[in-house]
């Protein structure tokens, strides 16, 4: 039977005024979590808040998430101190499918870089060649810049401001990749909707399998309440779309089935 775990914040690494990496002790989540899955974490407000898992340490029995302040709940969570208690549900949802994958191109943006980091770690542990391309606003916003360099075969960044890596967004970088380098590549992308859409279209044009991790306002996170639905193509059912639950049926979907 699954449980709601009582957990403690054991480490808070501040990345900037509105962003932090939080590490919690939770043997069950550390043991089970897969890249692309998420946790639903308590805050001082009524509903829990969903966060993509950034990293797990099975030996230390911990997991980490990246949190960016986007509202009251995330502000409270970022303001927590080491030793503070939380309750959590997880790991939730379906992660990225890694079976049979030979080569990875991971693309991250916004808070999407945290689950992308998890996928990069997994790829390293499983000897899957992995190229990460992250899009940031500017150098000061380039969270985990040093860490990514250590977990993947190659790491490139773009910044809107142009003060780190290539100037522009991730699409500017992707357009420079030679088709020959893309043989056998699977694309995974997590970031703002417009970015995931553009990367998906690019991948489809190149004939590359592509997975995205969708985000919606959630309540339960376990598939019971139906508030976090997204539109998924349903031609086989004779319909334009069906509403699937981001939390339970996703959050990872094959890009070609998503209606943006």
């Amino acid at each position, binding site marked *: 039977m699954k449980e*709601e775990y009582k957990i403690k914040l054991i480490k808070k690494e501040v990345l900037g005024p509105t962003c932090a990496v939080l590490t919690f002790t939770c043997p069950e989540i550390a043991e089970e979590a897969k890249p692309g899955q998420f946790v639903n974490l308590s805050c001082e407000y009524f509903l829990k808040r969903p966060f993509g898992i950034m990293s797990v340490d099975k030996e230390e029995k911990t997991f980490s998430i990246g949190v960016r302040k986007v509202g009251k709940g995330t502000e409270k969570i970022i303001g927590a101190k080491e030793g503070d208690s939380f309750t959590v549900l997880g790991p939730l949802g379906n992660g990225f499918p890694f079976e049979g994958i030979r080569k990875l191109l991971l693309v991250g943006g916004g808070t999407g870089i945290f689950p992308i980091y998890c996928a990069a770690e997994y790829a390293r542990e499983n000897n899957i060649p992995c190229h990460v391309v992250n899009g940031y606003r500017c150098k000061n916003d380039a969270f985990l810049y040093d860490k990514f360099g250590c977990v993947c075969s190659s790491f490139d960044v773009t910044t809107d401001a142009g003060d780190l890596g290539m100037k522009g967004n991730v699409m500017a970088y992707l357009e420079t990749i030679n088709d020959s380098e893309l043989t056998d590549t699977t694309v995974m992308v997590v970031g703002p909707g417009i970015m995931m859409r553009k990367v998906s279209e690019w991948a489809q044009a190149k004939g590359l399998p592509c997975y995205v991790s969708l985000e919606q306002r959630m309540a339960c996170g376990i598939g019971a309440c139906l508030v976090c639905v997204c539109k998924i193509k349903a031609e086989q059912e004779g319909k334009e779309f069906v509403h699937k639950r981001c939390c339970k049926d996703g959050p990872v979907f094959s890009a070609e089935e998503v209606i943006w």
Partner: protein
Amino acid sequence: MSISVKVGSVELKNPVILASGTCGFGRELAEYMDLSKLGALSSKGLTLLPRDGNQGVRVAETPSGMLNCVGLQNPGVDAFLATELDYMVNSGAGVVVNVAGHSNEDYIAMVEKLDPYKDKIDALELNFSCPNVKEGCMVIGSSPNAIEALVKDLRKRTDLPMWIKLTPNVTSIAETAKGAEAGGADAIVAINTMLGMAIDIHTRRPLLHNNTGGLSGPCVKPVALRMVHDIYDAVKIPVVGCGGVSTYEDVLEFMIAGASAVELGTITLVHPTRPVEIVEDLLKYCEQNNIDELSSLTGTLELWR
């Protein structure tokens, strides 16, 4: 020591029912609790045809609660009968089937489809109260006369216990409850969600893409309690209390106010194991307070004069 209760002719092993729309058909919550420990499950609101529900943002958090505008996304009554009813029956909890129509004809058609399954269903819960669809439901449920007429018609078509789930979005819920009783209902379920709104001050648009939604959670409990009390005073048929129940003390409050059983749901979305914990707490409460029959608490409220 017994925590079993009766809602009219329907016997439940305890008063805890998962409210419609917060538990699907039980499958997801079965990962977190043994459903057979519950009094009953009330199914997701069913419509005659499958429904995709509303598009866009469907939830907004509010102080001590939430707004939703799911809009009755459900597979339709036929798919329910084919794939979900047996799952609910096998869960070991009592089976309440929530029926939501767009018109009187819809309710009639659905009741006629469900009636042959009376061996598997403990009660029909007629949803006259969903605030998130444009037709039927709350429109019918706002008029005592419309409720009476429809319940009377449905009464001729089924012997299944008919519980009427009422909306709080009326001037007098005692009057709508009386309409249901006059029509031949077996019980009243109160309350469904309260119509509400949340606004993004930056975009000056409603947070919910349906503009309005149904408010639920601990914030509605005082209103729900007052309404259960009003209904208990107004009708002779049993009342099932619903609205913000989150602890065993809340269950007791509703029972004292007049409820024979309670439904709960929004709390399950935050703490999915809570319903079975409440059942255990109720048993402990009875043991510690030498209460032989939990059901003896129903309607024991003593008002100040």
